[in-house]
């Protein structure tokens, strides 16, 4: 029996016999047990040189870079987008003025689903959840007066990612900006769509092909661009536990590497530009540990599977967003506190860029006031708390290191299961991650309803009368204007060039030839998102989801 066990028996046990613990069970937000105390006994066999390393050194537990926030703060990148391209452009320029370091674009549902603003299914949805972009001209308006070679942009788009990225690149070309000077990210993570976010177009394997095509193009033509942001955020928001979020994300990442390698790409060339995107939820310790474990696991897995010569292929760079699902409609100002604490966990977890949610996002897209407050939250953490002044300050904490180890062990179990199935594409086709998530989300809801999981203001500390808070309303005229613009664009464009571009795309899609150059030409020829997607659907069919409940 070690010291800790002795203490639990002789001191803690009797203490709680006299005065019971305040809850029957103590678990992390993900349902894993959390002990009264952690000590050196929980880190038996822990080798700091092997398991921690130095910042910027294998296995990167302490951070991807040697200088981390001492050299440069994380990128404060607030996701924005609503209404028309002009509306969002104004918000972008406002945010840049307020001090964001980079832009992140939210597209509306029709765009996300590859449909134009005048598509019948787009009715009522144009400009609501993000900005409506149907053509290169909308993209140009979106980035009006924004220096594309000096600002990095994230395009949060998946199914039609290649198409929208091509439009962005085409805008740069039309402005005379060399592609090699562009920096940014496209989310472009199709696997998590089938698993969680459900924004898909074509079936799984053709979608993987499109993703690999972007890896090839980026490595060659846009070397400062991250052609993928392998995402766990949506998986977590769909109800996964922290471990499931971590495991499925990293396994997705490994699957993308494998497909790239099978397509003839070299790990050293394309994997360094992978980026990752995690959720940061309420359980502070768990989230810090999760982010650290992610880096260590990625480094070890990539090393073991491919032994790349380029060390940067083993370095996991992460963007994080505070958990949307933790925002509550009741007593919305509580959300400011939740976001601040989640953001702190992200910083202590060593993320490279961060988006903080606004307090009013359970009702609507954020107002200018609330998005400013969300940004200030990051700025206060950066400049007033001191946590950014020393690297990975929680390292060595018994609890944190134990939890980090536990994540790695849990990952290994899930990895083995998925490997036995033949990889993530197979697992997705069998519904494995989807079912796991549905199960976790149902269990969580039950915990909440039984009162085992307290949500302040919702199932405890409620207030009956609540004053309303101002929310953003989308002008329905946006939809009408977009439809008119599309009509006008179609009338003006060079039909010959347009037709030829779509034919070229169709051929490339059929033969598996490089598609990105075809997408760029389509952008220049003023082919719309919906028109290009129609070609892809023609060639590859449409994905039908089996819906695992």
């Amino acid at each position, binding site marked *: 029996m070690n010291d800790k066990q002795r203490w639990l028996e002789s001191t803690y046990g009797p203490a709680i016999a006299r005065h019971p613990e305040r809850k029957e069970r103590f678990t992390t937000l993900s349902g894993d047990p959390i002990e009264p105390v952690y000590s050196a006994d929980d880190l038996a066999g822990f080798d700091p040189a092997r398991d921690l390393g130095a910042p910027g050194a294998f296995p990167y537990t302490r951070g991807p870079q040697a200088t981390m926030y001492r050299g440069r703060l994380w990128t404060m990148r607030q996701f924005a987008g609503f209404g028309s391209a002009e509306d969002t452009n104004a918000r972008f320029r406002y945010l840049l003025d307020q001090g964001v370091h980079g832009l992140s674009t939210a597209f509306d*549902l029709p765009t996300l689903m590859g449909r134009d603003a005048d598509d019948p299914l787009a009715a*009522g*949805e144009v400009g609501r959840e993000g900005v409506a972009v149907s053509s290169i001209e909308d993209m140009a308006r979106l980035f009006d007066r924004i220096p594309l070679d000096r600002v990095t942009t994230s395009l949060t788009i998946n199914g039609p990612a290649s198409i929208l990225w091509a439009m962005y690149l085409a805008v740069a070309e039309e402005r005379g900006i060399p592609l090699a000077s562009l920096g940014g990210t496209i989310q472009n993570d199709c696997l998590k769509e089938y698993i969680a976010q459900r924004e898909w177009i074509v079936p799984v394997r053709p979608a993987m092909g499109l993703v690999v095509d972007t890896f090839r193009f980026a490595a060659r033509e846009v070397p400062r661009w991250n052609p993928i942001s392998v995402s766990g955020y949506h998986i977590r928001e769909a109800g996964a536990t922290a471990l499931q979020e971590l495991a499925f994300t990293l396994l997705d990442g490994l699957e993308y590497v494998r497909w790239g390698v099978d397509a003839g790409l070299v790990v050293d060339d394309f994997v360094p530009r992978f980026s990752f995107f995690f959720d940061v939820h309420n359980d502070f310790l768990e989230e810090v540990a999760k982010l650290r474990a992610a880096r260590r696991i990625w480094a070890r897995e990539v090393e073991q599977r491919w032994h790349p010569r380029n060390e940067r292929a083993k370095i996991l760079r992460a963007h994080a967003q505070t958990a949307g699902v933790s925002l509550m409609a009741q007593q919305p100002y509580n959300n400011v506190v939740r976001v601040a604490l989640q953001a702190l966990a992200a910083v202590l977890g060593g993320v490279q860029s961060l988006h903080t949610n606004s307090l009013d996002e359970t009702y609507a897209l954020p107002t200018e006031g609330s998005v400013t407050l969300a940004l200030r939250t990051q700025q206060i953490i950066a400049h007033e708390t001191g946590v950014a002044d020393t690297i990975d300050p929680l390292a060595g904490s018994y609890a944190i290191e134990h939890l980090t180890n536990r994540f790695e062990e849990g990952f290994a179990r899930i990895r083995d299961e998925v490997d036995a199935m033949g990889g993530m594409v197979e697992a997705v086709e069998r519904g494995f991650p989807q079912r796991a998530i549905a199960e976790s989300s149902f269990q969580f809801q039950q915990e909440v309803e039984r009162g085992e999981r307290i949500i302040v203001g*919702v199932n405890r500390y409620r207030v009956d009368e609540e004053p309303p808070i101002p929310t953003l309303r*989308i002008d329905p005229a946006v939809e009408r204007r977009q439809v008119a613009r599309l009509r006008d664009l179609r009338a003006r464009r060079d039909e010959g060039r347009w037709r030829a571009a779509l034919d070229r795309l169709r051929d490339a899609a059929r033969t598996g030839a490089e598609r990105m150059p075809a997408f760029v030409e389509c952008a220049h020829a003023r082919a719309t998102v919906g028109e290009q997607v129609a070609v892809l659907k023609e060639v590859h069919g449409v994905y039908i989801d089996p819906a695992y409940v």
Partner: protein
Amino acid sequence: MAVEHEPARAGLKRPIRVVVAKAGLDGHDRGAKVVARALRDAGMEVIYTGVHQTPEQVVATALQEDADAIGVSLLSGAHNHLFPRIAALMREKGLGDVLLFGGGIIPEADVPGLTAAGVARIFPPGSSLDEIVTYLRAAVPATRAR
């Protein structure tokens, strides 16, 4: 002498049948799936339609399945367009006595308009599964009795 009709499922009451739908382009189905499970656990038969259903598809399903209620989950902000459309189609197809209820991200201010358009009940964020079950258990027998 007339032989009595032999019931197939003697003694089993007709369960409540609910169509749980995600209409429009919004694919966030965590809530819809959790509700579907809860209704099943409450003894109801749930026809889950999956995501990206058009109003026409939702109503066609409810029609063929002879559903007592349709529950629509919407987080995309398109509720002011989609709910009235579904309600109108329901009336057109003779489903006027089927309950239309919904949940998701629907601001308080929009509820009266939806009610006027024919939505029987909206469950705002933070509603418990229990509330939904209780509501259906009370409301469905009432509509069946009509």
